[in-house]
Structures are given as structure tokens and as C-alpha cells.
């Protein structure tokens, strides 16, 4: 079976500048959930837009369901639902007109799901989109994205700027689709609680590349952060090269290292390879791991 998404060495820049995506390779299978994490400007939106066929890759290849999204835009888009925080919508249309257009465009439109979501979101059908709140507009976009029962749902920071109630409705709708249709979901978010709930695989995008590609359980249970007194690390380069070390950064008078393994195996590694015996080693939550992997250094002299 062909992967739902296949990116091979994708490079993309804007106006000849430094590449925003610089050799991104990953694939997704049907019914898979992948969370795309990264700091602002890390290329998450560019990746989503390339997947949607809204942007060409400058190098590399992209396939959705085995087809190029720029060469077969209609065939690909029929099988995708897309919601983005900065999505452009026809603001002078009413909610009813927007839904009617999508109903006509998609042969597989599910009228029962439309009815259910209209009731859940309590959207006013005759109101123009420019008179709705941000949350209501995003709900209208979500309804249009899911009622044709897509095989792939692309959600680009769908929760940005939304209140907790609307955020939860996005999650509920996504999970309903996962359960009932087996829809694959690629979503980007800064809401780590949402990432925890949707589960699946996590891709960490940084400097135009994928720095980490692991399932959530592995991230939570098989990665540790070691905090070591700076003076105890005689050779920083040796620490960076040690097996399983994913990131090293300095925070004031401590060295923080993200390392593959459980607390016992990481302590053994530090003792055997570097002679460090007094490290504090712990498993951390997703938010702390994100900061440890992507956060900047704070040197003592700069503090």
C-alpha cells in the first residue's frame, strides 16, 4: 500500500534565501497520526503547504497517495481535509454558502456528519464569515475539511488563538475521524497537551531538518535529560559524541544533555564514557523535552 505522504529530501526557500526546509525526508502510512513540532519559523507551515500542493519544493520529491500534489491537485485534494490558523476564507460568504460549495465539490460528502457538527458547533448558517469569531470561522473550516471523510487531515496549528472549548472540539472531531474513518492526521501545534492526547508519532523540525522522529511513548519513556555540573564535564566534545546523546546545551553553570535510554542506562553511560557520577538524570514531559531539544543556551558569562 502506498504511503499517504512521502517527502524525499525536500528543499524549499523563499526569495533565494536560506532554505526553510533543507532536506526533509519522512513518510506517513494510512491511519497514522503525526504531530509536527518546532519553534516559530521552523518550516512547519511550509511543509504543510507543500503537502497541500500550495507550494512547489525546489528540490526533492513529494507524493501524496503516490501522486504529486502539484501535478494532480484535484485528485489529491479530493482525499485531503485542510485547516490552518491563517487559512484564507471567502469572508463575505455565509456559513451556509461555504458549506454548500463544499457539498457540491465532494461526491463523498457525509450529510449526517455535517448535521452532527453543525449542531455541536452551533454555527449560524446565515451569518457571513467576517461577522463570526475566530473560533467560529475555524469551526466552519473544520466542518468543510472533514465532512467529505478525507483519508488525510492536515491541521496547521488549528488551535492557535482558540479558547479551550473550541480546542477541545477540534480534538474530539479529529479523534472521531480517527476512530470511524481511519483518517491519517498530520498536525502542527504548540499545545503539548493536544499532542499528548492525539498520540502517535512526533516529528521535531529544526533548522530546516527533522531532528527527531519517534513515537510519543518512546519519547516519554526512552529519552532522559541529564543535568551535570559544568565543572564535572571535562570534555564537552566527548559528551556530544557519546552514543545516544541527542543534544547538549549549557544553562548557567550546568550542562543539560538529552540522551537515549532509561535513567539507569544513562547514568551508566555517563559514568563509563565520561567519568561523570553525580548527574541528575530524569525522564521529562513533552514540553520540557521540546525546550531541551530546541531551547537556546544560556552561558554563565551572558547571564
Amino acid at each position, binding site marked *: 500500500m502506498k504511503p499517504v505522504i512521502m517527502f524525499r529530501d525536500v528543499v524549499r526557500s523563499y526569495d533565494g534565501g536560506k532554505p526553510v526546509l533543507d532536506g526533509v525526508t519522512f513518510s506517513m502510512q494510512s491511519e497514522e497520526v503525526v504531530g509536527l513540532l518546532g519553534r516559530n519559523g521552523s518550516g512547519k507551515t511550509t511543509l504543510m503547504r507543500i503537502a497541500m500542493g500550495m507550494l512547489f519544493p525546489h528540490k526533492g520529491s513529494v507524493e501524496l497517495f503516490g501522486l504529486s500534489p502539484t501535478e494532480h491537485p484535484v485528485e489529491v485534494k479530493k482525499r485531503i481535509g485542510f485547516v490552518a490558523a491563517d487559512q484564507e476564507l471567502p469572508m463575505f460568504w455565509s456559513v451556509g454558502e461555504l458549506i454548500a460549495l463544499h457539498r457540491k465539490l465532494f461526491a463523498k460528502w457525509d450529510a449526517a456528519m455535517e448535521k452532527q457538527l453543525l449542531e455541536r458547533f452551533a454555527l449560524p448558517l446565515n451569518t457571513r464569515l467576517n461577522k463570526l469569531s475566530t473560533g467560529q470561522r475555524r469551526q466552519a473550516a473544520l466542518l468543510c475539511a472533514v465532512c467529505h471523510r478525507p483519508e488525510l487531515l492536515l491541521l496547521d496549528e488549528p488551535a492557535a488563538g482558540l479558547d479551550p472549548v473550541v480546542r477541545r472540539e477540534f*480534538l474530539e472531531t479529529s*479523534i472521531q475521524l*480517527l*476512530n470511524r474513518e481511519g483518517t491519517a492526521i498530520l498536525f502542527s501545534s504548540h499545545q503539548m497537551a493536544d499532542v*499528548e*492526547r492525539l498520540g502517535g508519532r512526533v516529528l521535531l523540525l529544526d533548522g530546516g531538518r527533522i531532528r527527531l522522529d519517534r513515537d510519543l511513548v518512546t519519547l516519554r*519513556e526512552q529519552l532522559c535529560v541529564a543535568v551535570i555540573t559544568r565543572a564535572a564535564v571535562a570534555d564537552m566534545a566527548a559528551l556530544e559524541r557519546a552514543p545516544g546523546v541527542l543534544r547538549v546545551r549549557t544553562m548557567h553553570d550546568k550542562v543539560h544533555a538529552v540522551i537515549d535510554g532509561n535513567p539507569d542506562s544513562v547514568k551508566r553511560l555517563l559514568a563509563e564514557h565520561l567519568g561523570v557520577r553525580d548527574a541528575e538524570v530524569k525522564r521529562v*514531559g513533552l514540553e520540557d523535552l521540546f525546550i531541551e531539544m530546541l531551547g537556546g543556551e544560556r552561558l554563565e558569562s551572558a547571564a
Partner: protein
Amino acid sequence: MRRRVASGQCNAVAGAPSDMVIYITCMLLSISASDDLPIYRQIMRQIMDAIAGGRLARGEQLSSHRELSEQLVIAPLTVKKAYDELEALGYITSQRGRGTFVSDTLPKAAQGVQAEQLGELARKLLSQAYLSGMRLAEVMQLLRQADRSLTTGSDVASRTRRKTAI
């Protein structure tokens, strides 16, 4: 009105579990996405606590992956992972076409941890408590609170009562 399955009564019905089964399983569980434990481990721990405290009886039916996933707003694979691990440990069993049930025969560790191990745990507990300035009576009070939490589900149970009354 919904009510809880009587202790020890197996609610095994061919096909989908009833609304009551879904309701009961969900009321036993309280998930926090910001907890130190991954969500699947929270589900495991709470189901094991409910079995240990008698709030889930042997043979009692649990919600399906899909139902629990939608009720708790978590991915279905997360529920599957929790159930798979619990099944591997012997706490629950899944029967094709019928559903998932609390095991009739619980694993040895659940039936009674060796007295020696419990004695060691008690010594550690008292040592920590005395070092932090507590007295034996206060430790006993903590143990009684923990017992109530296991047998009644503490805050989860009080939320259940409120919801049932609405």
C-alpha cells in the same frame, strides 16, 4: 437512570458494550495530558487501582477502545496500548467479538505481594515519614486516606456522584 454493575456480576453481552459499561469505565478514569505519566500509563494505573480497591470486579466488562477514546478524547491507539499492557500483565482479558473484561484470575502480584516485600516497603515509608518529622499516628492517617482513595476512587467517585445526580 444509569447504575453500576453489581460487584462480581459479569456484564458480558455479545456485540457492543452497553452505555452503562462505557459510563462506568469512563467514570473510573480521569486523564490529564499534563501529568508526569504518559496517558496510557495513567489508564493502566487507574484501572489497576480500581481492581485493587474493588471498584472493578472480576469479570466486569470494560469499554471498547473506540468508546473510551472518544469519551476521554485521546487517540484509540493509546487506549489499545494501555489494554494490551494490562492484558500482558494478566489484569484483563479480551475476547474476540465479546469485549474486554477484568480477569477472573488476577496475577499473583495482585493477589498478594510477599510479606517480606511489603515489610520492606513499610520500613521505607516509615523511614521517610520520620525523617520529615511525622509521627506514627499521622502515617496511619495517610494510609487510611490511601485506602479510601483506592476503594472509593476519591475525587473521581465524587464527580461520578455529581454527574449521576444531574
